[in-house]
């Protein structure tokens, strides 16, 4: 006890050195654990998400870009496909195609235009409010809602920028109808809306200032002049004037998630898109992510080696610091010896100091590791969203 008391008093007296040693020790201990936690977490999150997304259909090109944009809503830009590709899957009756349109953003969060099937497919329902019902409504991912302090009844406005470089993109006010629960997946960081609403942002659908009376619109020949403006807000009053131009099968999608009815249907579907001449391809996200994860882990091995070397160097530096500190206490030990202290007591004095430093470093490292682990899902999701 006396040795601990004296060691603690000495460490407190030289607090700056002690804190530095504890911090360095904690970092040496925590960094490999944290990097392992995040790596394993990333791997698990990437893999789980990819495995939960059976097939992704999109334009032929980078398979990685396609998978990443459809599964993680990454800003990668696969060329758009059209609704015709989705309809083609639908017509096979082999699975459920879920549209994804991820060209737009609002306040730094990606707007994911999809169908409400997406939520059933992912097994999530709003924690607050309800799913979007009509054009112009949106459901927020948990972290978007938290970060921007938004909930049902609030509005967000889409950014004028877009990934497809489309002309005629006007900011659209989206009404928040619901907020999803936190899922630890990229769903937390996006704003969901109906794909038709995304098309309104893209300028494919629009309304008119002088909402045409329904009866007239139905069978009259309505001629409007150039004074008509595109709406930036879809309201109860003007929603009936919203309509879409061009053939529906030509409307763009970033990708299509395909949920085959069974394994056999999945195999048949994949087979249909193998022809390299087909401008549309189907990828299996789990396969692509497995390849990606393998690459990440090869890099991680290198990282581990670097961490090891740095750790050894840092440990040596810590050892030197402790040794010098011990040398500085040599006169004290001489005095203690004169006062009757034996070798055991003197060793206890030295070891108590190391023990306290080590204990504090372990505690700090544990706090760091636990903090990272308890927020692991969120951290991993954040890292993956970078």
């Amino acid at each position, binding site marked *: 006890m*006396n040795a601990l008391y*004296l060691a603690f008093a000495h460490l407190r007296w030289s607090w700056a050195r002690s804190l530095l040693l504890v911090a360095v020790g904690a970092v040496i201990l925590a960094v490999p654990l944290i990097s392992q936690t995040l790596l394993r977490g990333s791997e698990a999150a990437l893999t789980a998400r990819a495995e939960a997304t059976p097939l992704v259909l999109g334009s032929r090109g980078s398979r990685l870009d396609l998978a990443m944009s459809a599964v993680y809503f990454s800003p990668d830009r696969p060329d758009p496909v059209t609704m015709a590709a989705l309809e083609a899957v639908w017509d096979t009756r082999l699975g459920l195609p879920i549209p994804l349109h991820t060209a737009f953003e609002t306040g730094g969060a990606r707007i994911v235009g999809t169908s409400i099937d997406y939520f059933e497919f992912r097994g999530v329902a709003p924690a607050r409010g309800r799913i979007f019902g009509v054009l112009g409504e949106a459901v927020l991912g948990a972290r978007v809602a938290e970060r921007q302090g938004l909930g049902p009844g609030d509005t967000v406005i889409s950014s004028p920028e877009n990934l497809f470089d489309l002309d005629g993109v006007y900011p659209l006010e989206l009404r928040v109808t619901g907020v999803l629960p936190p899922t630890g997946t990229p769903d937390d960081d996006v704003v969901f809306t109906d794909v038709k609403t995304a098309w309104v942002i893209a300028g494919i659908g629009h309304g008119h200032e002088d909402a045409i009376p329904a009866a007239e619109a139905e069978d009259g020949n309505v001629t409007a002049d150039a004074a008509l403006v595109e709406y930036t807000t879809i309201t109860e009053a003007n929603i009936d004037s919203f309509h879409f131009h061009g053939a529906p099968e030509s409307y763009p999608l970033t990708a299509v998630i395909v949920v085959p009815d069974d394994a056999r249907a999945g195999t048949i579907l994949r087979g249909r898109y193998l022809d390299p001449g087909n401008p549309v391809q189907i990828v299996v996200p789990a396969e692509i992510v497995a390849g990606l994860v393998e690459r990440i882990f090869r890099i991680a091995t290198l990282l581990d080696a670097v961490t090891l070397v740095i750790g050894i160097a840092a440990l040596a530096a810590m050892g030197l610091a402790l040794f010098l500190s011990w040398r500085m206490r040599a006169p004290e030990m001489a005095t203690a010896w004169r006062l*009757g202290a034996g070798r055991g*007591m003197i060793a206890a004095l030295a070891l108590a100091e190391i023990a306290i430093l080590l204990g504090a470093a372990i505690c700090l490292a544990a706090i760091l590791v636990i903090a990272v682990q308890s927020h692991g899902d969120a951290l991993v999701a954040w890292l993956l969203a970078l």
Partner: protein
Amino acid sequence: MIEIADLSFAYPVGRFRLAIPHLAVAEGARVAVVGPSGTGKTTLLNLVSGISRPERGDVTVAGQDLASLSERQRRMFRARNIGFVFQNFALLDYLTARENILYPCRVGPGLRLDRDVRDRAEDLARACGIAERLGTRPGALSQGEQQRVAICRALVTQPRLILADEATGNLDPATKTQILDLLFARAQDCGATILAVTHDHALLPRFDRVIDFADLGARP
């Protein structure tokens, strides 16, 4: 208190040799040890405290023949019976004056740091005029205050013998006499014998007895 007979000591390296045919110090005496540098004054203190062992001869302190004790027993004997006052005070920077005074009870074998010891430390500090400075670290104390703390530390274990090695060497003349008087007074309070190495001949009249190593037969 101290009985030395037919003592002979040499360091493993070097030609120094200390031989003391006979030396006796009475209980409660205040004895000064003087002599030129290198004549073995500090070696004498080490032999009397059991830190060093003689090649030959007997050293008996407080009735205990040190040669008959094991290394551990000698340390325990030293912790319980002997107090030290050093020239450089040997206070620990990181402890307060109070904790420096209590230090021997923390590291000494077989000693306990209990309520009585703490009360005794307070009493000693009061008697030495440093009661107000107990919470202060050595770096913030004057040299005189530091040596008072060192005296309190030497006395806190209620030793029967106090060994002082140039205890006043670092002090100005006015402080020297004060500190020495203080040491004598406090030692008298607990009936301790004092064996003090000094170079300061002005202080010698205050001692009961002076042992001059020039006369003792020590040979470099």
